[in-house]
């Protein structure tokens, strides 16, 4: 008789590799997170050509660059940066991620596999110097984007807002002829407990025009607002799951 394996479903850890999981299950408590968010108007064609059919663009089209430094997490310190297009699911404001860079292997895997960010491993730095904040996002030694915030002015927590994200979870079928068995949008909506919050002027540059990581496509057409926050972030399970292609 064949001797079948004994590693049943009840023994499955939260992630692969099964015998040495890369990261623990949510929720992750990310204490003393630092988050820089720059919002600016973007090209209409980029918004319309990048959003899935379930989402509609805002008028005017705009997006965010969101750069975070997480000094503590279940997988150690890491940085994360995401470019997002602000959109609407039905009539509610949401943000759709275009590109994400995460600075450590374990965090990158979790952001891509579990939270469905379009994440790649790269370099993210975020530094506050006096009354300015600087961020740099890179990959393979190339700086894809740099953001600088100046003229910091304190604001209250009640004035802060981060749009919930609608992340595309797509699992390709193993056989060529099959449709993707998973094709959905997951609403990732962390809880933030603000400690200090500022607003200011923002500027973004895209030093490298990389074909592999085309962050430069989301050019700044008109600055709207830039904020910086120190907060505790709780990153949990997706709040809702909705269709990828039906509004």
């Amino acid at each position, binding site marked *: 008789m064949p001797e079948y394996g004994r590693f049943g479903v009840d023994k499955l850890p939260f992630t692969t590799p099964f015998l040495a999981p890369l990261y623990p299950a949510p929720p992750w408590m990310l204490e003393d997170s630092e988050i820089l968010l720059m919002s600016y108007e973007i090209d209409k064609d980029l918004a319309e050509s990048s959003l899935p059919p379930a989402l*509609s663009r805002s*008028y005017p089209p705009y997006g965010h660059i969101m750069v975070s430094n997480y000094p503590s997490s279940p997988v150690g310190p890491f940085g994360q940066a995401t470019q997002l297009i602000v959109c609407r699911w039905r*009539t*509610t*404001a949401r943000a759709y991620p275009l590109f994400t860079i995460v600075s450590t292997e374990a965090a990158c895997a979790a952001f891509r596999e579990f939270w469905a960010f379009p994440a790649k491993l790269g370099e993210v730095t975020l530094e506050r110097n006096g009354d300015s904040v600087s961020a740099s996002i890179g990959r393979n030694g190339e700086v894809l984007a740099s953001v600088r915030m100046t003229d910091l002015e304190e*604001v209250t927590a009640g*004035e802060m*807002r981060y749009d919930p994200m609608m992340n595309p979870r797509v699992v390709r079928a193993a056989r060529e002829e099959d449709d993707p068995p998973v094709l959905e949008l997951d609403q990732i*909506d962390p809880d*933030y407990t603000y400690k200090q919050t500022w607003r200011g002027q923002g500027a973004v540059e895209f030093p490298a025009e990389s074909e592999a990581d085309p962050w430069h496509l989301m050019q700044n057409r008109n600055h709207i607002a830039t904020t910086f926050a120190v907060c505790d972030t709780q990153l949990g399970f997706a709040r809702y799951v909705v269709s990828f292609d039906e509004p």
Partner: protein
Amino acid sequence: MRFGIFYELAVPKPWTPESELEVYQTSLEQVRLADELGFDSVWAVEHHFLEEYSHCSASDVFLTACAAQTKNIRIGFGIRLLLPPFNHPVRTAETAAAIDLISNGRLEFGTGRSQTWNELGGFLCDPDDTKDMWAEAVEAIPKMWKEEYFSWDGKYFKVPPRNVLPKPLQKPHPPMWVAVSSPETAIQAGERGLGMLGVSGAAPEEQAKRINTYRELVRNCEPVGDFVNERVGTLNWLHCSEDPDEAAMYGQQLVQGFNTLNAHFVAIRQVYPTRVYRAPGGGARARRDRRGAASQRAEAAKRPAGGGLASASQAGTFRRDDLAIGTPDQIIKNMKRWEEMGVDLVTCLVSVGTLVPQEKILKSLKLFAEEVIPAFDKGDEEPRPYDPRAAAATNGRSGSKAEKAAAAS
């Protein structure tokens, strides 16, 4: 309580070369009929760059056409933006006075300051400044209407001594209002003796709180004009039909069409951190999202794809007890709620572009005028249109309710 009609001049896509023409012309036809039927007032917004939702950037021109094509209905800015980067206050005073003359003294002067990044960003207007800009202009404009040589040395605009012409027909000046979309703006209206022109779809309970706050404050206000315009307006949707299912279907199209278009703009509070426009905090937003999720998904399940409009079968379940949507009896019952709350004027959106067929809108207006309007007492205000002798006797519209309330207390 009185009833008016309210225009955003929405032009939903898909567009043809005639889309805007059709919306303007059908709207004017509705206004002419509303005038004949005895509606109290017609109001038009001023919005810029709000694709589909509102193509009413030149509301002064639209209202001038309304004035020229009607005899009795009052003509309301709902509202005029009092921000110098949009409209220099002198140009606003001149324009309003000209419409008052053309309408033979029928102007209602609503004021406000814009809520969207589309507009403020488009005119390079700093959101932090809008509250103070509005406050400065709303104080100056009645002086321009009254003084022979007006001058102003303010923070946001300056005028050397000049005679601002023409002067309005209504003396001392037309009734003044401010758009109220939050508890804070209700306070601003009450403190300045301005009419409270509700422009948000807030729940009746929330609006009742605002009205109470307003009535309290207006008793001891320092009016920016020469008199207190103590009136409360609220925004509603109107579709009246003897057939409740038809009323629900078209009513749902109105409400959903309006809300879908409106949701795609960028409210200042969504994107710009400032105390001047209140934003829900992150925690508050998250809690609201969680609470709203079940109803949002249930609502979504009823809706057709594309964020589009309801079919007749779906609309059967659309019933709300605060809207002017339904049979005449249903609407009378609903509107009595607002009357009991102290609302003086209900302004109604009757169309969103041409989503509802014109003949249905005209029929709805007729039925509403025949069956609903007579069920409400218009109140004790002076006869309309403008009567120079009555105005001279009362010095314009006095703050009768405020005076009565003060005397009673």
